[in-house]
């Protein structure tokens, strides 16, 4: 009975604080404080700082600001133009033409940045006007972009996966490597949608692109190649066990700075702008993580997560049913909260549940990223939709409608993950890992 009472109190205070627009990190602290004062005799304030200090000064967390910084640097270079110009000559052969630059561009930028909003702006800034000029239908341009930008959180480095790994104490490197194949499969799904459009809507096809010699194709994409080299260095060094996630991030930052320097877009202004921007984003995530750490401590004292886990266990659900229920749960949660917050907020409760049910936590990390990312392109609160609205000045409802096929594909992706869990677990189980 106490558990039920505790759950009700926690949920009520949580929704009251979050709903009244208190900043997420501080709201979580407030909820945790109420829980500590009501259900334990421990001094709340001291326990809070001990937990927060241990978490905030941890070595594993250092990968977070560095990966953010790497993305920020490349975001401020000419990469946006180069992505489109460099990819276009290679994509024009495919059925569906230059629409594929949206997917390929997002995939590449996702591999240097951990955020889907940054991926969306970088690729969209160039591809939206160029694709419009060439006469591709608007709904295809917007829809594919909205969907593909979610790859930003799937393909390593991914901020959500770092946060997930830190929260449940799992190897970030493993999570990153696990996200690789599912991310590429999702990209392939998006591309096959474009191919299908090409064959089913023949009248919407624009004029084919003019021919281009191989030499000029190489010339156009000369800026793209260093970026690809950087991507392979960062991901490869983690996969082959040469570097920890943090070290790979440091290599990424230095590589990005070098690229920007060679390209001539590194000035003191862009350097300091990228540094300050990264500092702010990292502080934002740190505050949420601190609130979540205190909240899971408070919930741990009430025994709530264990009780819930054994309750779920007692119901004898099959893992598939549990996953289906969690999918619906996260989609609903994602209607009101952003992806990061919904992951950290629920992990204290969900982690014992999935461990009890014998679900692989690495696999679950990939699953949860796909689900919360799907929520980013569904109304009423979908971050990607807001970014796209700012860029295109279309109504939210229109953008959401164009993204529906992508949402369907992402739901299909969840089914694929459930049916073939190996696509997420095979690669991390076969990589060489270094200690630490």
């Amino acid at each position, binding site marked *: 009975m106490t558990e039920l009472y505790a759950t009700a109190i926690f949920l009520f205070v949580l929704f009251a*604080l*979050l*709903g*009244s*627009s*208190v*900043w*997420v*990190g*501080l*709201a979580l*602290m*407030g909820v945790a*404080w109420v829980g500590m004062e009501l259900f334990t005799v421990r*001094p709340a*304030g*001291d326990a*809070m*700082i*001990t937990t927060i*200090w241990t978490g*905030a*000064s*941890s*070595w594993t*967390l*250092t990968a977070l*600001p*560095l990966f953010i*910084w790497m993305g920020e640097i490349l975001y401020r270079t000419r990469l946006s133009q180069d992505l489109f110009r460099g990819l276009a000559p290679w994509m024009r052969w495919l059925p569906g033409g230059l629409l594929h630059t949206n997917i390929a561009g997002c995939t590449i930028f996702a591999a240097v940045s951990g955020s889907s909003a940054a991926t969306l702006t970088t690729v969209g800034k160039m591809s939206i006007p160029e694709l419009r000029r060439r006469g591709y239908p608007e709904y295809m341009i917007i829809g594919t972009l909205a969907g593909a930008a979610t790859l930003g959180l799937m393909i390593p480095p991914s901020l959500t996966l770092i946060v997930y790994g830190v929260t449940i104490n799992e190897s970030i490197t493993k999570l990153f490597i696990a996200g690789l194949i599912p991310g590429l499969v999702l990209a392939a799904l998006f591309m096959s949608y474009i191919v299908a459009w090409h064959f089913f809507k023949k009248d919407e096809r624009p004029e084919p692109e003019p021919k281009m010699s191989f030499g000029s194709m190489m010339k156009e994409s000369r800026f793209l190649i260093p970026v690809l080299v950087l991507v392979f260095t960062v991901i490869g060094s983690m996969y082959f066990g040469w*570097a920890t996630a*943090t*070290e790979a*991030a*440091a290599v990424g*930052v*230095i590589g990005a700075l070098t690229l920007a320097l060679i390209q001539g877009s590194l000035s003191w202004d862009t350097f*300091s702008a990228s*540094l*300050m921007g*990264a*500092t*702010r*984003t*990292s*502080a*934002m995530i*740190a*505050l*949420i993580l*601190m609130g979540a750490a205190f909240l899971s401590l408070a919930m741990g004292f009430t025994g709530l997560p264990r009780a819930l886990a054994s309750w779920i266990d007692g119901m004898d659900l099959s893992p598939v049913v549990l996953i289906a229920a969690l999918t619906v749960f996260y989609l609903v949660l994602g209607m*009101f*909260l*952003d992806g990061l*917050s919904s992951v950290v907020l629920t992990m204290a409760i969900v982690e014992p549940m999935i461990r009890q049910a014998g679900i692989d936590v690495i696999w679950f990390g990939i699953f949860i990223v796909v689900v919360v990312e799907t929520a980013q392109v569904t109304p*009423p*609160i979908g*971050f990607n939709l*807001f970014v796209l609205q700012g860029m295109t000045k279309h109504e939210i409802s229109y953008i959401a409608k164009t993204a529906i096929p992508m949402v369907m594909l992402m739901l299909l992706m969840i089914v694929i993950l459930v049916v073939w869990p190996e696509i997420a677990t095979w690669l991390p189980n076969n990589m060489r890992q270094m200690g*630490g």
Partner: protein
Amino acid sequence: MNDWQSILGLPLWALLFVIPTLLAALSLIYRKTALRVFPPLWRVLDRLYLASGMLAASFMCVILLIIVAQMISRWTGTTFQGSTEFAGYAMAGTSFLAFAHALNHGAHIRVSILLNINDFTKFWVDAGATLIAAITATYFARYAVKTNFLSDILNDRTQGQDQVPEWLLALFNMITSSPADWGTIWANAGSGWVYTPVWLPQLPMSIGTILLAIALWDNLVRLLVNGKTNIVGEILE
């Protein structure tokens, strides 16, 4: 130890929570006076937030340098003792010191369904949310400072292998003592290295959380006086 003992005849909770709330309420009632009194203070505070943010950014560069140094030392076969601890301290510095700066640049996220209904709800919901946030942040800061002091009193040392030079500790000691004692402190500081006392890396935590609390009270007052907060470029979902 009583957490809320009296200072200057008032219990600490009154000083930390009630007085700022009253100040905010008064500034709503006497807007004109507030508009005369506060602006110089606002200019100082804005510089303070920015300075703290820049310090946080430099800690991020420090993380990068430590990790690069760690990789180089591994390749060259030397050891960099306590590199992971130092990177962790720098991480804490980056996060805590940037809180206030991030707040004023709208980087901290929140659910804004109620904020977006109309201007009336925006004002009052925002004021309420900022008040709750300010109280929470003040509580956070109060215990951060307490923990920081306790680490010093209990002479808490690091669990890792990281060491700092004694003269650095002496420097910080001098800041908190009267100039008359500086000579003795400096003379007594050895030239060796000691295991990092935990209070040192915890300093950014105290400073950062205090600044966050101040920034939130500051935003509340600015909202009540000006009708808008100091937060620029917030993406309201």
